[in-house]
């Protein structure tokens, strides 16, 4: 597509519920990133894929967070047993191989509220 698409835009989950957030990157972009943006903060890196390979997951805050990109295009970020501290905007970004030079294209994010 023309841009990075994320769904849903908004998600309200009860504490303890599992959620799945979807990211559809720009067609042909090999690199895909997930970031977490808490209220009033800058985005923080969660994980990075190059095609289907998850090359870095050092930013995932706990083992309740899991991301996949099985066919090297669409990615899903799953959060199990959600907690209130998981409330944030989850941003997805994609880039071509030279993303470090060209920059990244971000989606509009999914705002997750855990109640």
């Amino acid at each position, binding site marked *: 597509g023309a841009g*990075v698409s994320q769904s849903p835009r908004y998600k309200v989950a009860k504490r303890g519920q599992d959620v799945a957030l979807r990211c559809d990157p720009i067609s042909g972009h090999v*690199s895909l*990133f997930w*970031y977490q943006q808490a209220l*009033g*903060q*800058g*985005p*923080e*890196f969660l994980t*990075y894929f190059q095609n289907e390979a998850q*090359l*870095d997951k*050092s*930013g995932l805050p706990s083992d309740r967070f899991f991301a996949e990109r099985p066919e090297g295009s669409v990615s899903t970020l799953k959060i199990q047993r959600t907690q209130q501290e998981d409330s944030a905007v989850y*941003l997805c*970004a994609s880039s071509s191989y030279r*993303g*470090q*030079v*060209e*920059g*990244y*294209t*971000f*989606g*509009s*994010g999914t705002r997750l509220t855990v109640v």
Partner: protein
Amino acid sequence: AQSVTQPDIHITVSEGASLELRCNYSYGATPYLFWYVQSPGQGLQLLLKYFSGDTLVQGIKGFEAEFKRSQSSFNLRKPSVHWSDAAEYFCAVGLPRDSGGGADGLTFGKGTHLIIQP
């Protein structure tokens, strides 16, 4: 680990006045440097980037930024702001591929909230 500091949480500027948003980074070498803008409920839009060459870089929407190695700074400027510039601005750094660093992910500052007075 690299870090990014945006010392001003909020800045208020009158429409038509000039603007400078500050950004300092901490890293052993010169990283790649970016400025992004985020409007409410929107994703991040790239304003400009620096990775080498001319230290004054031009971006979209009339913004420019100057890289100063001696000060580890990458301040964003605009000569005359418009009401539509009200938004959150983020400075970010990325590691060059040959740095031996980890992911190609970016490290962001906490952002500066720009308010435009009529």
